[in-house]
């Protein structure tokens, strides 16, 4: 098991190295350079001395490999630089916004589980019925419709036509818990439906696979009621993909958060990322890309290790 974990860790480190190179390259792709882009419209950009000074200040006059090494060294030490747009410390910006996005993710995961598991179970138990077809179509629609459109439709229905929830805005939980929950109701739902649809599809196929196993036939043969067979023998092993899907959908949720936070005016990591991308605020942009990739990488690593722990065949094959 330790050897397996060691191999997976090494793989992850190699991937992480490649990720950092790619993120660095993306920032280099900005025509001219990032400082010129950030200073566009500023009168000082016509002053060669000012531009040279700013480029020197950000180390952009160094050879590219040196720039990369310096940037990586600083990043690993927790010095993520200062935002070109706001002048704030990037790490502080992250830490400040992280709880807001985590609250959004937590709420969305709750919705995903509340929708995905029952729908998946019903779909599997009523396989090939009209209800199953309806639910399957529903899950594909849930996975397919863009989060931004779903958000707009729900805002129109629940904030404009029937004003039940506020159309946008964020109130910290510590300030007013009830208003916070009310404001987060729609954003978490919008973010959760995609993962919910995905989860329902995985639960359905996993449960169908379990229901086809020999021991289920044995359970039926010894005279157990269908209810007992399903509840006691099928559901538990059928739920194995739940953790995986929830874990893996966090990457997708991050992308969804980019839209949801913009539409609902939530000051989290997603909105910060979008603003950074549009302002070409490259220290924030690079940090966002690294954190997003690191998140996916860590989730994948945990899923791999968990699978290796649960299923010895995976360990041997690796």
């Amino acid at each position: 098991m330790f050897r397996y974990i060691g191999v997976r860790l090494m793989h992850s480190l190699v991937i992480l190295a490649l990720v950092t190179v790619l993120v660095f390259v993306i920032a280099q792709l900005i025509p001219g350079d990032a400082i010129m882009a950030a200073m566009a419209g500023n009168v000082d950009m016509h002053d060669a001395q000012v531009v040279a000074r700013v480029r020197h200040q950000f180390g952009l006059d160094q050879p590219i490999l040196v720039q990369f090494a310096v940037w990586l060294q600083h990043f690993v030490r927790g010095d993520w630089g200062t935002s070109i747009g706001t002048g704030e410390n990037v790490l502080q910006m992250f830490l400040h916004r992280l709880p807001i996005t985590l609250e959004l993710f937590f709420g969305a995961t709750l919705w995903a589980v509340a929708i995905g598991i029952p729908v998946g179970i019903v779909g599997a138990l009523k396989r090939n019925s009209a209800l199953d077809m309806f639910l399957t179509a529903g899950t594909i629609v849930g996975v397919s419709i863009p989060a931004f459109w779903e958000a707009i439709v729900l805002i129109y229905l629940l904030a404009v036509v029937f004003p039940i929830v506020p159309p946008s805005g964020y109130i910290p939980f510590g300030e007013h818990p009830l208003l916070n929950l009310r404001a987060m109701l729609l954003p978490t739902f919008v973010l959760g439906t995609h993962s919910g649809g995905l989860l329902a599809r995985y639960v359905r196929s996993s449960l169908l696979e379990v229901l086809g196993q020999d021991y289920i036939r044995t359970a039926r043969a010894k005279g157990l009621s269908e209810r007992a067979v399903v509840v006691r023998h099928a559901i538990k092993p059928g739920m194995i993909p739940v953790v995986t899907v929830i874990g893996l959908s966090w990457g997708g949720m991050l992308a969804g958060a980019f839209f949801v936070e913009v539409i609902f005016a939530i000051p989290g990591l997603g909105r910060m990322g979008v603003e950074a991308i549009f302002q070409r605020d490259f220290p924030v942009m690079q940090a966002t890309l690294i954190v997003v990739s690191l998140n996916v990488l860590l989730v994948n690593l945990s899923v791999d290790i968990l699978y290796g722990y649960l299923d010895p065949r995976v360990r041997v094959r690796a």
Partner: protein
Amino acid sequence: MSEVVRVAPIPPGRSRSARLALLRAVFQHRLASVGLGIIAVLCFIAVFAPLLAPYSPYDQDLYKVLAPPSAAHWLGTDNLGRDLFSRLLYGARVSLFVGIVSSALSAALGVAIGLVAGFNGGVIDAIIMRVTDAFLCFPPLIFILAMSAALGPGLQNVMLSFALFGWTGFARITRGQVLQIRELPFIEAARAIGMSPYWIMRRHILPNAVAPILVAITITVGTAILIETGVSFLGLGVQPPTASWGKELRIGFTYLETAPLFSLAPGLMISLAVVAFNFVGDGLRDALDPRLRGAGLVRR
């Protein structure tokens, strides 16, 4: 795109009849046939938009800004007095074009990389797969946004960025197929008679790996449409005055209270297109999945 596609290779020699059987299975799959119907209608709209649209999508009538639906303007007008219905019809062109070209580009790139990795094996395979894994860590939308922002707004840059981040799924699927196929006796025979590796890949391996790649392409078209509209929604991608569903949705969102159709209608078109491609992809996958074949699950 990144979902696992379990598909058996079509046995050599029977590929034509197998493809016909596949087509039949897709048409029998109810959701897939609904999807095919929607795609056919959307393609028709995109091709014949100039004939179908009652107005030019660029004609402004500043006296009729944000007009409600009427006999003259079925869906009303936008913030510049342009006919919304005509703009929606023209918007199909952009979305379908981007969807199809982006997925074709990423498929071409991914299939080539997957073929090389799977056929050669060894160090080349290991390196390529590590790079693929690294790319898989990127939520595509975020990286496409960043790339599009870095390269500047415009459809070409969105398509290029999509291809750069969308090839990984194709590479993995193709590699998996090649690993299965290259062990089959007819490949050994081809090697024995002295065929070059390039020719074996082109003539014998690729045609037999096509089926799962087709599934992935179908699903990727939907993803590409979703990403193009998303990128346009956030302000990159298509630039005005070109009619695009994502852009209309974004501008319409500002007028949600006064002109709800301005944002709801383009969103519906995006959703319909994406759902249709996913329905067909799902049907194809069911039809090709050896575990589901004959298990009574194909006819849904």
